[in-house]
């Protein structure tokens, strides 16, 4: 019982902090924090599944989040018909050739007898496949990117409602997780870490450079948000404007608050569904098996549990949730900006959320998501204020004062590191520990 009271107290405190922000600065900012907090909480749930339930060390969260974002673009953006006519099918054919080559190589590895012949056959197949792939792929890409490069220059998407994109983002991330898991699970935990770190960097590199797919650093803007209205549409609705005036609100501010509230409702529904499902899973025989594997792999294996298989399963599940969160984030931002994916922000910050909140506890992960996101946003103004206070006595125009004021923006990383280390030292099981 005391556990629950403590947990509820923590949540009340965090939302109290956000409410204070709403009162003192603006409700727009506070709702912004809540919306990203909801998405962060979902990412933290995904990582918590992998780390908290199963002890898997995934530091490629950024890659899965970005793949989810790509899912949102592929599903919801309108298709660019000229680009499809120019080279869409050829690109697909090239991708099939590429995948076929790799599958063929794996088949050869499995089917042929050990020896030089096998090695030679695989090398020949891979080299031939690679050149065939490039032969089909390169001209197709050039053709696609030549179609109105300033406006589109990519294949576009399927033009479906954005809500479909969320599960699709999850599926894309799950696919990548399957590939990583198949190769790196079953090896040491550090190796999985390095492998996921690598795959995340590669995914970002693909998003940045494959303009035919994601427009690269030119960004995809104007991702539709079909269930949620646009601010400008609300402001043009006579009924909305008069109602808000009657209630005593400025219609422009009210419109953006209403939009944010709509998002918050949608995201909360997803989060609640996920928490319910994860809690059910955690308390089921499956969840107990997972924790048994985490706490003693050898014993679990001796009891006949398929450790690597279960690890693969939960690795895919957790990554899919990160992908879902990534698709939601692109929906919220209305754009995919591959250049903005930074490992410190999208991988390590999520880890801080999980550790601070309490690994192994879903509610802890959610709390960590909100709290750490709140701090991430608020540390900058606090740092600036701190620097203002420190430098108040210094002479204007002194180099040190200018430098200190300018550096306040970098307080964030320092603070996050400090919080992580302090929690690990003094409360290693997090704010809401696993029971």
């Amino acid at each position: 019982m005391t556990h629950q009271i403590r947990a509820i107290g923590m949540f009340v405190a965090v939302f109290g902090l956000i409410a204070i922000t709403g009162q003192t600065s603006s409700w727009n900012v506070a709702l912004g924090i809540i919306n990203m907090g909801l998405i962060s909480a979902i990412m933290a749930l995904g990582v918590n599944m992998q780390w908290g339930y199963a002890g898997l060390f995934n530091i490629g969260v950024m890659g899965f989040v970005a793949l989810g974002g790509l899912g949102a673009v592929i599903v919801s953006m309108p298709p660019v018909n000229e680009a499809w006519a120019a080279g869409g099918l050829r690109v697909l054919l090239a991708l099939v050739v590429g995948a076929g080559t790799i599958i063929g190589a794996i088949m050869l590895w499995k089917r042929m007898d050990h020896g030089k012949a096998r090695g030679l056959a695989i090398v020949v197949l891979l080299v031939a496949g690679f050149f065939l792939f490039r032969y089909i792929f390169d001209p197709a890409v050039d053709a696609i990117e030549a179609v109105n490069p300033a406006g589109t220059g990519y294949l576009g998407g399927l033009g479906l409602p954005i809500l479909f994109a969320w599960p699709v983002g999850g599926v894309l991330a799950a696919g990548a997780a399957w590939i990583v898991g198949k190769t790196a699970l079953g090896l040491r935990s550090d190796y999985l870490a390095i492998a996921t770190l690598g795959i995340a960097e590669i995914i970002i590199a693909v998003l940045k450079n494959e303009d035919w797919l994601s427009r690269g650093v030119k960004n995809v803007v104007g991702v539709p948000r079909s269930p949620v209205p646009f601010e400008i549409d609300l402001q043009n609705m006579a009924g909305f404007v008069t109602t808000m005036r009657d209630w005593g609100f400025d219609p422009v501010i009210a419109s953006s608050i209403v939009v944010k509230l709509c998002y918050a409702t949608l995201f909360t529904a997803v989060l609640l569904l996920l928490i319910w499902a994860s809690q059910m899973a955690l308390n089921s025989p499956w969840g107990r098996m997972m924790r048994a594997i985490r706490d003693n792999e050898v014993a679990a294996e001796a009891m006949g549990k398929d450790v690597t298989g279960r690890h693969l399963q939960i690795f895919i599940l957790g990554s899919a949730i990160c992908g879902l969160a990534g698709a939601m984030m692109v929906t919220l931002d209305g754009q995919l900006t591959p250049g903005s994916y930074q490992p410190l922000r999208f991988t390590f910050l999520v880890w801080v959320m999980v550790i601070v909140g309490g690994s192994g506890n879903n509610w802890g992960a959610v709390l960590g998501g909100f709290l750490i996101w709140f701090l991430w946003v608020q540390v900058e103004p606090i740092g600036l204020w701190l620097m203002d206070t420190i430098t108040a006595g210094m002479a204007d125009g002194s180099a040190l004062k200018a430098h200190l004021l300018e550096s306040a923006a970098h307080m964030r990383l320092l603070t996050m590191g400090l919080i992580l280390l302090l929690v690990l030292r003094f409360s290693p099981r997090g704010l809401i520990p696993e029971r």
Partner: protein
Amino acid sequence: MDPINAIVALLNFVIIPATAYGAQLALGALGVTLIYGILRFSNFAHGDTMAFGAMCTILVTWLFQGWGLSLGVLPTALLALPFGIAGTALLLIGTDRAVYRFYRKQKAAPVILVIVSMGVMFIMNGLVRFIIGVDDQNFLDGERFIISARTFREMTGLQEGLAFKTSQGLTIVTAVMVVAALFWFLNRTRTGKSMRAFSDNEDLALLSGINPEKVVTYTWIIVAGLATIAGVLYGLDKSFKPFTYFQLLLPIFASAIVGGLGSPLGAIAGGFVIAFSEITVTYAFKKVLGYLAPGGWEPDSLVQLLSTDYKFAVSFGILIIVLLFKPTGLFKGKSV
């Protein structure tokens, strides 16, 4: 057919840059592998340690430049290097006392130490950005080239130029000296031997009266030296930007793992394997093949296997291949 020009072009664009880059990676990977061997965890803060060391050196370099001190044709940074190492060593020993020692006493699982090193990474990253900012810093002075492309062309009368930068020559010479000194230290001195004993079998080492805290302190000092030298050489060769040092983490870990985590010799081999494959795969061979092909057969395309933006994919691919087929690495590291 013009094989001499082809060889010169290959040297200029592939072999020399890859050797320098490989030496930088090897020095970084040596630090990672030493920490893994003796403190038994993968240190994710290593890239940022390199950045911190390079930053300390840059600050002292600026001070010296302000005083008018210089080494003539060599970069002033060499003079500042010992101070950078000392600063980094102080930071690392301080971090060990304040952070890592607690978990060592508790005999915490390695993965906890990895997460702790993530926290340290955040703090060091923040510290570097706080002190020097996120921008590019160029601190190379002295003579830029040992041989410039133009001099080479005038000397030999060849069509292709060969540029050999001071920073590249410096990197190779320094790396050879540092590695020789490190191996001498590990194999010949009493402290070095106790470090190896501690890495091979901790219990036995403790029983023979080796002081673990002393071993750990020496390890951090050596790691500070390696990381600072690697960071400064990389900064001289390319340029200093805190974020690129964070990104070096992947090739450095790939080098250490490919060579076999915990094996110093492996770290060096791994560094060169990764560097050469990264540069070979992302280099456009049009020019070289153009010289080699018989008349009329010159390639039209760039003959570039992967665009340079995918260099991470190369280190990653090699890492995966080694992990799948030889999980202990080329030189039999500790890990399974």
